């Protein structure tokens, strides 16, 4: 991975970002944070509706139709800006425990969001009438929110990977 990261840092795009890092990196990171806001806000609204804490004037389907596409779009923005950050600073990103833990949680969070939207479309009535009232589903809503919270924490920890001590590959380098 270190070798791959070092190779990546010699590519044209990477060299460009490194050359203009004083403004390119903060700019990409700012767009990334704006995307995080939209993702967390959207997940939050859907979860609150499942928990019965907000949006009760809307059906589950209405809330998901409103926020689902924004969630997907913002995730694409995050993927693009995230990829640019990896290309711009490959060693800083790839040679950390935080980054890979984060990618794992991103995969889990995205999978849950996708499965939820697909099953809701297929079994709309069941979701609105019974599933949404189930305790297990409400727990899942809380868990989903916590997964995205963990993703944010791990994202910030990429810059502080030393907090993992000897578990961090960055401290060995």
């Amino acid at each position: 991975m270190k070798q791959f990261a070092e190779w990546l840092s010699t590519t044209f795009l990477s060299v460009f970002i490194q050359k203009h890092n004083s403004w390119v990196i903060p700019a990409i990171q700012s767009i990334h944070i704006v995307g995080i806001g939209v993702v967390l806000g959207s997940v939050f609204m859907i979860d609150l509706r499942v928990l019965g804490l907000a949006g009760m004037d809307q059906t589950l389907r209405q809330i998901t139709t409103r926020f689902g596409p924004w969630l997907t779009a913002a995730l694409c923005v995050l993927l693009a800006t995230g990829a640019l950050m990896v290309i711009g600073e490959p060693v800083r990103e790839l040679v950390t425990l935080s980054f890979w833990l984060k990618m794992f949680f991103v995969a889990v969070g995205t999978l849950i969001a996708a499965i939820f939207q697909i099953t809701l479309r297929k079994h709309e009535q069941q979701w609105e009438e019974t599933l949404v009232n189930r305790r297990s589903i409400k727990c899942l809503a809380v868990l989903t929110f916590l997964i995205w919270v963990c993703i944010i924490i791990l994202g910030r920890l990429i810059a502080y990977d030393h907090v993992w001590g000897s578990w961090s590959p960055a401290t060995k380098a």
Partner: protein
Amino acid sequence: MDIVAFLKSLEASGLATRIRDSLWLFPLIESTHVIGLALVFGTIVIIDLRLLGIASTQRSFKRMASDILKWTWAAFALTAMTGTLMFSTNAVVYYHNFFFRTKMLLLVLSGINMLIFELTAGRTIHSWDKAPSAPPAGKTVAAASLVMWISIIVMGRLIGFTTTRAAVLAPPPTGVNFDDFLQGTPDKRGGTPAVHPDKK
């Protein structure tokens, strides 16, 4: 007591020292700050897009506002608290930082913006509550709010790139020039040219 003396005593406080000395406290506080601001921004965007008539156009504005804004305020409290904690660890440097000052100014302006809403479109909600968008004054406030909050995020990120925690060890001399920070020449401050974790 002048402001710099106060900021210095803030930096010397037990809590600030504890955060500085800890390996993981600052990163954790910073992460919580990001979670809080993501919720503040995410929920404000929902309201602003409703006012602009871009999304949630079928819903009652009043209902949405009462549903969502309490969470915005709770998240804002969390963000302000964690922000204050981060500020205390390196108060003098943050106080002199151009981007920090701009961010604080923008926060005040967004408060005033909110007040303008309450005094204009906020007074006539009953007449446009179910309409797909707010009257022009409401739309202007919403657009300004979006621009300001995105700018606040950009400023926040730039603070991280122009201040260094290590500068605490060698605080800048009093009478330091703002331009030094803008030009990004930490050596001029007489402190160690430290590297922020974001810059590594």
